């Protein structure tokens, strides 16, 4: 049968790969993913969506097994994973594997952290689990894309389930057979619809993936039976959720070629597919000058942009993260795309709204998803054009470690040099030297406490 053994192969990879057996660039991608994810989750711990989920978790109660990032609260493993996974994604400012548009950090890092706390794992075991979990999620994603995405699934939720389960299973020490069952339990719960974009439920997707993944590993460990071919089997995840799944792509050169090293980090706090358009608008800001003279803005982009970023006149900060029109406007007005550009106040600002109404989008399937061309036409007919070949933060134009530290600092209104920011980044970037994850969690708490009132830039 096509794809026979795919689930078992991914399970064996996650369970049996020797500790630290991956190239340096893959380990670096894992550390950067941890740094970015933990900083985002800690900084967003007071977000209303996160607080509401935390409220439900506290209402349900239970043993304090794992830490809520940035806070002193502790929760049962699956609920810590839920809350942290949501917090990491709620600002839409996390990481992206562009070929699949999966944000692997949000479902996988929280699942691994929660599992690591309950078993007392070392920092290097945590890094192994995160790297392997990311690779599993991204491989599953590559195999079902693009059809799975086009059908309307939110891959961070669906593929995230596999990565979270694989990482948690690795930390629990499950063998390949039990890991295959954990993947089966996760597969049947892989969920998340694109209809939820623009609501709190979008961030719930990676949170739920993290929680279900942690729980799946626990249930598998206790002996719950599940199919060992849940991905490729008849009426399995591949066949049911994608029109033309490519199982070979899930396992080809597994362990020799890594999708994990292609994970990229967002410089802007909005949907990634509009980042090249935002780059173009920021670049044009200086040459355009007086914005009252703008008559028309035209962005040529890949068609996927309007699939997820098509909100024309967003009413809230959250909705504005899914508006390429808003991105073009704040790029021209603020020359930035950080959290401050996607607030309720910015979404309803009259100057921004006027510019948004002047913006038009042209779909060009020949453009890559990290490319765009932005034109601004002035009242006197002058046209300024900016072509963006690779968006900032994309695979071909990655953020440096210093830029990643600066990004983290901005989340709490500080700079990369502030001690709480530097300490968190150092902990994450040297995570494999930690005896346990305690110092990383402590640094995340200090980082969140250092938050200053955010001011518009």
């Amino acid at each position: 049968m096509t794809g026979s053994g795919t689930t078992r192969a991914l399970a064996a990879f996650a369970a049996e790969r020797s500790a630290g057996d991956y190239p340096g660039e893959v380990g670096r991608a894992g550390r950067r993913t941890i740094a970015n994810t933990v900083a985002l989750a800690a900084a967003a711990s007071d977000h209303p969506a996160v607080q509401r989920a935390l409220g439900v978790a506290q209402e349900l109660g239970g043993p304090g097994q794992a830490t809520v990032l940035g806070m002193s609260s502790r929760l049962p493993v699956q609920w810590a994973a839920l809350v942290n996974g949501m917090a990491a994604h709620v600002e839409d400012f996390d990481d992206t594997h562009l070929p699949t548009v999966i944000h692997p950090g949000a479902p996988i890092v929280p699942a691994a952290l929660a599992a690591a706390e309950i078993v007392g794992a070392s920092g290097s075991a945590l890094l192994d689990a995160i790297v392997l979990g990311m690779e599993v999620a991204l491989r599953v994603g590559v195999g079902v894309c693009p059809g799975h995405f086009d059908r309307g699934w939110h891959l961070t939720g669906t593929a995230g389930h596999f990565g979270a389960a694989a990482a948690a299973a690795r930390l629990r020490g499950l063998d390949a057979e039990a890991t295959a069952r954990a993947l089966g339990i996760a597969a049947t719960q892989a969920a998340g619809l694109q209809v939820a974009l623009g609501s709190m439920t979008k961030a719930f997707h990676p949170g739920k993936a993290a929680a279900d993944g942690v729980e799946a590993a626990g249930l598998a460990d206790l002996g719950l039976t599940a199919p060992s071919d849940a991905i490729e089997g008849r009426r399995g995840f591949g066949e049911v959720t994608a029109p033309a799944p490519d199982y070979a792509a899930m396992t080809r050169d597994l362990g020799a070629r890594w999708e994990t090293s292609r994970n990229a980090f967002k410089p802007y706090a909005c949907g990634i597919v509009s980042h090249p358009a935002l780059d173009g608008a920021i670049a044009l800001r200086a040459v355009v000058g007086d914005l009252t003279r703008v008559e028309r803005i035209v962005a040529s982009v890949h068609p996927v942009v309007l699939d997820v970023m098509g909100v024309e006149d967003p009413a809230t900060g959250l909705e504005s993260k899914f508006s390429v029109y808003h991105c073009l406007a704040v790029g021209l007005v603020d020359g930035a795309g950080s959290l401050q550009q996607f607030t309720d106040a910015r979404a309803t600002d009259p100057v921004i709204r006027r510019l948004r109404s002047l913006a038009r989008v042209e779909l060009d399937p020949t453009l890559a998803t990290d490319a765009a061309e932005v034109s601004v036409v002035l009242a006197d007919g002058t046209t300024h054009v900016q072509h963006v070949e690779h968006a900032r933060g994309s695979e071909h134009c990655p953020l440096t470690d210093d830029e990643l530290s600066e990004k983290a600092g901005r989340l709490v209104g500080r700079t990369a040099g502030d001690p709480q920011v530097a300490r968190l980044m150092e902990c994450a970037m040297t995570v494999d030297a930690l005896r346990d994850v305690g110092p990383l969690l402590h640094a995340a708490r200090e980082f969140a406490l250092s938050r200053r009132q955010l001011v518009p830039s």
Partner: protein
Amino acid sequence: VAIGASRHPSVDVVVAYGSAHGGAPAAPVPGRHDRLDPHYAAMVAGLAAHIDDYDDMHLETVIHPSAAPLGALVAIGRSRGVTGLDALKAFALACEVELRIGQVVSPWHYDAGWHISATCGVIGAAVGAGLLVGLDATALTMAVGLATSQTLGLRVTHGTMAKALQPGKAAANGVLAALLAERGFTAARDGLGGTRGFFDVLSPRAEADRLLDGIGQRWELERNTLKPYPGGVVVHPFIDAALALRGGIPDLGDVASISARCHPLVLELTADPDPADGLHARLSAPHAVAVALLDGAAGLEQFGDARVADRAVAALRRKVALVPDETVARDEAVLEIELANGARLAEHVAHARGSIDRPLTDADLAAKVAALVDPVMPGRAGALMDAVEGLEAAPRLDCLLAAIVPPRSPSP
């Protein structure tokens, strides 16, 4: 049914997980002394209601409607202090919503590989839980949206414990959706019918008009049927036929061959001549026929691992040949048995016992309940039936929820 399954190893697993990682034990576990938090209580009750494949069935959609809403009811019915009537209403509306969503996407959604009792069950459970916690229409819409983002249930799991985990998890996810919505969590405004929503993504086709057609006047829940035997209902007419023919065969050693004519789809689903265990046997027509002929019964014992592994049962299973026949309806079967001396016996079952055309009587149901409850909680079946009978008049759910668990101090 949930009480009858309360000793199943899969129930042990989820109870163990919920005890280790769950919160305050606020809700009961049917048939057990354990108590769990609402999330894990919902999961266990939904799982236990389905693991034996002995629950209920709405034939048009092949949904087993009650497992997921029951989980929500057991989980949060008591803590919110609702009346029996409100609980009954929440349960009925939950099932109705679940079945109507199923009708919109049937048969395409199930045929595509989804375990429809879980995918639609999570939405039913969210509605049931939402009504129990008292959500208004706006918040209930959010709960439904949250449920559409937690759909689950791949049919690849059939034959494993993960299959029954699905309605269990559907119940738990529905409870989570309701609790989040109660706190103002936002979700898609049209999680079902919106672009890239449930109907769009989870089904190749959808007839959205069916959702509200005659709602409040015509009740799909009235078309729910209760199973007289465990296992897939498509196997049930074979059991009826085998039980009817059994009296005419003094010595089963004389059986030369058995031919079972059925709809081609039934054949595809139930042809397994050598099921690996009790779970697989529930969808094996050869096993059902063999065990009904040998034992003259078709209860939980007949679909247990021991009977599945029995040599005499296995030998008789191998004599059963399924024959596809387009002219035979899905709930119909023709069983022909040829004896060694050439004699032939035949039985035609137009509608299986327990189907909508031959529903279980109240007395049949009471007997089913007693058979399930007595081995777990001796002598408690009557109290359970009384509590259900008295539900509409009950000021609270305490009476019903006390009746689903063993008495506080277990008898020595």
